[in-house]
C-alpha cells in the first residue's frame, strides 16, 4: 500500500520574537580596544612606577606599534634589553615614571633604546583570571 504522508497542520505558530530583526553581532572587546590588530600586542605590567596614571602591577597593557609617539605619551620601549612602560619626554630624552618614588631616567648614548609602541589601553582585572595566574608574581 502506498501512503502519502500529510502532516496535520493546526495553523498555530508562536509569535515571532519582535526583537529578531534587531539582533546584531554582539559586542566585541577586541573591536573596541584594538584599532590595529596586526600591529598590536598585549603585555602585562610588572611594578609600581606607573600607578600615578592608573597602571598597576598585573594590569594588561595594549600596545600599538603603528602609532607615532607624541611627547608625553605612555609608551613601551626596549630599554637595554628589557621592555619598560614609561611616559616619554622627547624634549629632554627622558623616561618618566608616574610615581614619586621613581626618578626620571635619562636616555644616554650608550643605552640600547628602541621605541616599541604606544600604550593605548590598560586593563585592570579586579577578579583574578585563572588563565593569567601563572604570571602574577
Amino acid at each position: 500500500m502506498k501512503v502519502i504522508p500529510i502532516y496535520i497542520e493546526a495553523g498555530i505558530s508562536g509569535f515571532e520574537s519582535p526583537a529578531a530583526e534587531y539582533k546584531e553581532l554582539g559586542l566585541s572587546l577586541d573591536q573596541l580596544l584594538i584599532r590595529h590588530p596586526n600591529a598590536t600586542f598585549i603585555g602585562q605590567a610588572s611594578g609600581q612606577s606607573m600607578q600615578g596614571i592608573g597602571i598597576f602591577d598585573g594590569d594588561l597593557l595594549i600596545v600599538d606599534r603603528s602609532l607615532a609617539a607624541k611627547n608625553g605619551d605612555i609608551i613601551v620601549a626596549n630599554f637595554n634589553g628589557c621592555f619598560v612602560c614609561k611616559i616619554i619626554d622627547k624634549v629632554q630624552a627622558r623616561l618618566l615614571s608616574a610615581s614619586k618614588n621613581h626618578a626620571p631616567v635619562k636616555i644616554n648614548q650608550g643605552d640600547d633604546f628602541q621605541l616599541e609602541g604606544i600604550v593605548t589601553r590598560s586593563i585592570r582585572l579586579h577578579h583574578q583570571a585563572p588563565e593569567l595566574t601563572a604570571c602574577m608574581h
Partner: protein
Amino acid sequence: MYALVDAVSFYASAEKVFDPSIRNKPVVVLTNNDGCICAVCPIARKLGIPKFKPYFQVKAFLQKHNVVIRSSNYELYADLSERMMNVIARYCDNQHVYSIDESFLYFKNYGKIIKDWHQYGHEIRRAIWKETRLPVGVGFGSTSTLAKAANHAAKKLSGYNGVAVMNNAQQSKPILKQMDVNDVWGVGRKISLRLKQQNISSAYQLSKQDPKTIRKQFSVVTERTVNELNGISCLTWDEVKEPKQEIFSTRSFGQRIVDIHSLQAALTTHGAIVAKKVRQQSSLVKKLMIFASSSPHDENYYKQVMIYKFPVATDNSCDIANAISLVLTDIFITGVRFYRCGVGAIELESRTFQQPDLFVADNSNPALMNCLDHINNRYGQGALTLGAEGQTQLWQMRRDFLSPQYTSNWRDIPKIRC
C-alpha cells in the same frame, strides 16, 4: 610587475620580536626534535654558523660564542606570519602567500600609480618593521622568477639594502650575473649540476640560452624559467596553487618507542593530521602509506612500509585510523627501538569528481568530520582527537629550548616593567 616579499631568517627574527634581551645577540633556531639548525640570524651568520648543520656537531662552537639557541616555536611563527602577511596585503590587491614567510604580489595596471618601485619597496619594508618588528627583503621583477631573483639580490648582495628592482634587461643584468644558477627559482640541485657541466653557471648565462634547446635537454619547466628570466611571464598563480598530489605527516620521535600502543598513537596522530589536510584541499585518500623505522645509525636498521588501499576513497579520520590499526601488527616488532614513523596519502582523488562504489556503503560521515574540524579550529589543534591518538604523548617532538608563546597563551604574554 611582480614582487616577492620575504622575511630575513624568519624563525630567528621572530624569536627576537618579543625578547628584547636577544635583539643584539646571535640567535639560531633548531628544527623538529632540536636536530639541526634551520635558521641563523644575520649576527650569527657573521660568526660563520652554517645552516642545516646537526646541532650536536656545532654545540661547542655555539657555546663558545654565546649563541642563543631556540627550538622551533611554531605557535609564535604562525601568529607573526599572519600579521606580516596582513600588513603586506595592504600594498597590493593581488597577494599570493607562498610560504610561512614569503608572499608574492602582482601589480596589474599599477604603472600610473607607482612611479618609483624602489621607494614603494622601502615603504613596505618600513611598515612591516614598524608594525611587526620583522625585517624583510623586497624584490620587484617583470616576472615572478625575476621578482624572486630580485629578492635574493635585495637580501644577499651588497648595495641593495633590502630592496631590488628588475624591470628591464639593464636592471637585471648585473644581478643575474652575480647569481648562481642554483639560486634561480625552479632550478633544482640536479638541473643546476647538469647546467654547470655545460658551463652554464650564472643566472645570466642561463637567460642567454635558447628556450627551445633547453626544453629538449631538460623540460618545459626549465624552458619557462629561461623565458621568465627574460621578462616573459609564464607562471600564473593557479599553477602554484594546485592541490597537492601527496600529503605526508612524518617525524622522528623525541624519545624512542618500544611498545605497540605508543606506535599506534603516533601513527594515528600523523593519520589525523593527513586526514585534516586532505579535507582542507577537498581531496579524498585512495591509497595510504604507513611506515616506521629505527634509526639508520642503529646496528640492525629496521624499516617497514605498508600500503593500504581503501575500497572507497575517504577523508574520514576514523577510516584512516582503522587502516593504521589493520597494518600495525605487520609493522611493529618487539625489540625494535623505533625512531621515526609517518603516514602519507600517496593517491588522492578530488571530492568533486568522486567515483562511488555501488556495492560499498558510504560511511564517510562528512558532518562528523566537519564538526571535528570546527571544534579544533575554534579551540586549537588537539582540542578534540581520536581515542587512538592517546593522551600522553611521550613521542612528541623534543623542544628543549622553546621560547614562550607570547601571542597565543595568556600565561606567556610579555612582561613589561613599570
